[in-house]
């Protein structure tokens, strides 16, 4: 599926552009198994393309500085802070957001585990926790506490659901074991 979004608005922006660096470019992104084409500036952070052009709610704006992890997505299976990743640098990769893991009807074991453990209060950090946990479980299917905490240590949680999050990752790992 190919989508070109907000062409009219982008056209307006384009016409106003004075600098060469403001030039829009077309990028074909592979997001959650679908192909999406967007016209944006090459240095536009991936986060805004995902949230605004593709209308994905999963990745969150938390700091814009790669400090908190709320915006985390997977690019070729690796966690990436989408708030600082220029779209041009990830255009060749396979991008996965939390929407790509599972849906309400077919939850991914991690999503199910976070819901069953009630592993949040506000939940704003939850996207990043799940995405980094996914990357962890892909390479370490039987993580111990230390490995889970290590993998998530770059993610901030302010409501302090840390212990529930660790339990949720354990639960998911158990469910995913063959």
């Amino acid at each position, binding site marked *: 599926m190919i989508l070109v979004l*907000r062409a009219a*608005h*982008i056209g*307006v*922006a*384009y016409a*106003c*552009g*004075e600098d060469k660096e*403001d030039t829009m470019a077309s990028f074909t992104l592979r997001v959650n198994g679908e192909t999406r084409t967007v016209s*944006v500036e090459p240095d*536009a*952070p991936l986060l*805004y393309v995902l*949230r*605004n052009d593709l*209308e994905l*709610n*999963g990745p*969150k*704006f*938390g*700091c*814009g*500085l790669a*400090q*908190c992890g*709320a915006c985390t997505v997977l690019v070729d299976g690796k966690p990436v802070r989408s708030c600082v990743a220029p779209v041009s640098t990830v255009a060749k990769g396979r991008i996965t*957001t*939390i*929407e790509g893991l*599972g849906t*309400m009807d077919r*939850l991914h074991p991690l*999503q199910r585990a*976070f*819901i069953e453990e*009630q592993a*949040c*209060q*506000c*939940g*704003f950090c*939850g996207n990043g926790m*799940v995405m980094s946990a996914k990357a962890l479980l892909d390479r370490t299917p039987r993580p111990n506490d230390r490995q*889970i*905490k290590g993998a998530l*240590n770059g*993610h*901030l*949680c*302010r*409501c*302090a*659901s*840390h*212990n*529930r*999050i*660790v339990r949720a990752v354990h639960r998911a790992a158990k469910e995913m074991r063959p």
Partner: protein
Amino acid sequence: MSARSARSVSRRDFLQATGGLVIGFALAPRLALGQDRPAPLPGSLNANRMLDAWLRVDPNGTVTIFTGKIELGQGIGTALSQIAADELDVDLKRIEVVSGDTARTPNEGQTAGSLSIEQSGTALRFACAEARDILVSAAAVKLGAPAAELKVSDGAISAPDGTSVTYWDLARDADFKREATATVKPKPPAAHRWVGKSIARRDIPKKFTGGAAYVQDVRLPNMVFGRVVRPPSPGAQLLSVDEAAIRRLPGVVAVVRDGSFLAVAAEREELAIRAREALARSARWGETESLPPAGDALYRHLMSSTVPGETVVEKTSPVVAMPVKTLEALYTRPYQCHGSIGPSCALAQWQDGKLAVWTHSQGVFPLRAELGKALGIPTKDIRCMHAEGAGCYGHNGADDVALDAALLARATSGRPVKLQWMRDDEFMWEPYGSAMVMKLSGGIDAQGNIVTWSHELWSHPHSTRPGASAGVNLLAARHLAQALAPGLPADVPQPAGGAARNAIPLYDFPNVKVVKHYIAEAPLRTSALRTLGGYANVFALESFVDELAAAAGADPVDFRLRHLKDPRARGVIEAAAQRAGWRPSVRGDGTRGRGFAFSKYKNLACYCAMAADVQVDRPTGRVSVTRVVAAVDAGQIVNPDGVINQIEGGIIQSTSWTMLESVRFDRTRVMTRSWADYPILRFTDVPEVEVVLLDQPAERFLGVGEGSQGPTAAAIANAIANATGKRLRALPFTAERVKQAMA
């Protein structure tokens, strides 16, 4: 709120409202005696008295409940639906919740103070019990059977002869357009099917599947993206900026400059961010040194305030023996941040002079009133609709960003604006939890009992929310050319208290004096951060109890128990000590130690006691809080896991405040701008937490959202003292401070 607004009704308003001089004169003496006041109703029913303000039964088989309290990730929507489902005898799945919409829900003020279950839960409980009674009475007529013989099961009302009718059949006839009477008794705890169970929260699944869960996820047709450019410091004024150059940037739709308020809207979010950066580069500001000194000098500065001390409580018992030993200690707490993971965000749209706002404010009605004042339009032309934000833990930028969005949206020709604060906007401009100084002194008699106790404190305001004072306390208002300043807020009155919250000991000390210096004028913006003054006061009070226990050679748990009569207070202390495996009078070994603390939040809400274990690395000063065991009595518990989540989250959040957090600033600027300047606790430093609930099904609800923060700080301080023999009295206990103390 109600007392204040009652006072502010002028004589003229009163006469107009009552239709003339003669009637006014005749009514006045009776009103003064309160005879014309309607009978008080429980919880928020008192201020929102119509039944149909609280619930609606629909023919499609659902019940919609309306609440003025909003979801903050504390699970209020789920807990309220449990209460409603029980009183109505319907399945939980049938309950829909509408919350925080000035056009649709009751006005319950702020969602704050751990009061939502007490206020909204109590109101819904009585409203739903009465609604069930109305429906059953209607069924009795229809079925020709006495109401007392009818049974209700999931909304189906059946008579002994087997005939039945459902709520959904009766929905059109049942009249809830009447004032509640609260005469129908809610169910006894034994009859509850949903209340008391750990029902999974209804807001969580969408949060883990990319559903539209937050205000940031609201998308409106033809929407543009907004950003603000704040001054570089609290005292700064905008001198010049090249707006025209910014307007020519790609995608820019509008630039608004009004006094020192500066904002930009663009077609795309990243272009709005780029335009913000360009505006910031172009802007020239005049800055002034408006901030207090930092470090220890801050506390000397606070104590040098000329604001006289006000006695909060004074209790004397002349018969008691004179103390044989007295101690004095000074405790301090720095400015601290709410630090929401998601910076504040709002959407605003103007249509035909009317304003619609999507907001994560904790109080949509007070926000609407404040927006009306700031924008000079009647509140009837404003609708505020709540959508969740990231956890806020008190008054952060949520209300402020709503005004920013509304101001910017005036320049976008009816196009809606989504205005998102950047990380530095939130860190530099959210109202902080006030810095505080607590000076404790006390004495013990020959038997080692506390006979004198004094707690003197210095603090700036803890509540400057919209509606808390005259004037306008929305940030942008003070930056406008026609600046609107906030009035000086009064302190939150006792018994809950603001600056002096939890300063009055619950212990039975014979001589007690509590004095506050409430310094209303604040150079740095301060407001409600979870517990208000409670965190610092409990830290000081419960640390000092341990200091006196040590002076008396007593075990901290035993020492607390022998000064407490309240059986529920004793209950949580005993339960926490037992579950933690507390061993009396065990000294730490130099690096490992254990501390204890207790409080009853606000002296009105939940009881919470806990034991904390620490490990101190003496060479570096690094302290690990390894384990915390807490016991809680919250009266009747609606959702046990919800209570545990609040207490557990409070303990870990408070561990972060206590070990790491303070706002950095110099005499001109706030230097805390990103998480690099304001470290918080991470996974590898989080303690193991165990929470024991003492359920009291026959007791009324007691709020839990802020119950554990104060005791956590004191339990950690007491554990460090137990481990090392060194008493830390200045928050936070950074490695540097601990190392210094060990030297």
